[in-house]
């Protein structure tokens, strides 16, 4: 199939970017979206032009590196997939595809479609961990019995790959779904209780410091999340935060 691509090109973080049009033929339905961009880049390199910069790593929906706003939706029109799992069969011959970076003040563009998502790392570093001895005196994970329901919910929250689609989709560029998943995965487990108070306070504080917007419960994040992280996590984050602060 032949596609018309409108891609955001931006030299560096300080430059002003603009949309650039490309025409790309020979695209197969079985290609992933990133493979389609690989072909475009090969052609650009052969023509002596600069290839389009975009984030990618595992290309199997695990790492959370690939981003891209595709026709106004993070990771494109498909549900529960990352951009690397999006196939070109979702598009038709002659389609125009608008490709932009994830937009948020807290996700500044580095170049073209690549954005700096280290704000997520800083939220995680501020409290998304538990302090356990892992050298020489490791406690067996199964030594503490955990009921199946809590374990399942914690696991569901832990599947967040930190891709940033929630922020990209949210009209407010809010990072509540990400932060809530990272808080929930520990809040549901006994191992997470020791640092529970500081964790939620620090992670919310860091989230605010990074300049993400406020959640207005539109639910866009849940729909666009490639891992199906539920809004229930945001309600849990709220509960955890209020009780942590009211405790003192």
């Amino acid at each position: 199939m032949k596609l018309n691509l409108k891609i955001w090109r931006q030299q560096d973080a300080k430059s002003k970017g603009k949309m650039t049009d490309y025409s790309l033929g020979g695209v197969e339905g079985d290609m992933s979206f990133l493979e389609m961009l690989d072909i475009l880049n090969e052609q650009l390199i052969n023509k002596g032009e600069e290839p389009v910069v975009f984030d990618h790593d595992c290309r199997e929906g695990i790492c959370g590196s690939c981003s891209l706003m595709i026709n106004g939706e993070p990771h494109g029109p498909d549900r529960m997939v990352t951009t690397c799992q999006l196939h070109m069969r979702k598009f038709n011959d002659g389609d125009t595809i608008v490709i932009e970076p994830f937009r948020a003040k807290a996700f500044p563009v580095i170049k073209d479609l690549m954005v700096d998502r280290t704000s997520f790392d800083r939220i995680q570093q501020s409290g998304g961990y538990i302090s356990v001895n892992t050298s020489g005196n490791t406690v067996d994970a199964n030594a503490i019995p955990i009921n199946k329901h809590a374990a399942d919910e914690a696991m569901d929250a832990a599947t967040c790959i930190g891709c940033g689609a929630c922020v990209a989709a949210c009209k407010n560029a809010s990072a509540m779904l990400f932060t809530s998943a990272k808080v929930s995965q520990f809040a549901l487990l006994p191992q997470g209780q020791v640092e529970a108070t500081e964790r939620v306070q620090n992670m919310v504080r860091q989230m605010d410091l990074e300049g993400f917007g406020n959640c207005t419960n539109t639910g866009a994040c849940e729909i666009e999340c490639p891992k199906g992280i539920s809004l229930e996590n945001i309600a849990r984050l709220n509960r955890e935060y209020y009780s942590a602060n009211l405790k003192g």
Partner: protein
Amino acid sequence: MSALIKSSLARKVVMALSGLFLVFFLGQHFVINVTSVFAPDTFNTWSHFMGYNPLVQYILQPILIAGVIVHFVMGFVLELQNRAARGVKYVSYKGSANASWISRNMIITGLVVLAFIGLHMYDFWAHEMSYKYIDVKPEDPTRYFEETVHKFEPFWRTIIYIISFVLLALHLLHGFASSFQTMGVNNKYSAAIKLFTKVYAIGIPAGFIFIALYHHFNQIPH
């Protein structure tokens, strides 16, 4: 505690609690108004009580006005912060693909409701203030029903009220349920709460529309 006050979650709590308070007030307002359809004397009695009871006038009324102001100011602050958080706007943004128009446009429905509150205050509250404190007219517990019915005589006012109530219903359809999510309520009762909020969000404004239309078409001679 100080961290809570400064946080983004605190702003959400302020929106949620002030919103819930206004929703509760709306229900109480409806209960009194609906009596004007089938029991004018009861409507007069309750309206007179609300207009002259010191607790209502000097404590509840200022709290209500403060609630409206806080809800509006905080909503506006959140809107500005949220717009700034995006930074560079998308060339293509398909908001309808993942969220309802209602949830994405609370500022629009909210501003219409605010404008309506302005008109409503002019229509009824300003009149009451003038009657009681400027003209210093004597108490008359029988005047409210007739005054209310006459307010809905002009077609334009009835239409403005109806449009405003439709937008209020849209505002409540997202806002009422959303306030429970903000307060952290997400459990086995969530589905029932969501259903209740939807019935309330549509039912109460629909009731107000019915009252406005009823009085418009059942005018009494001046």
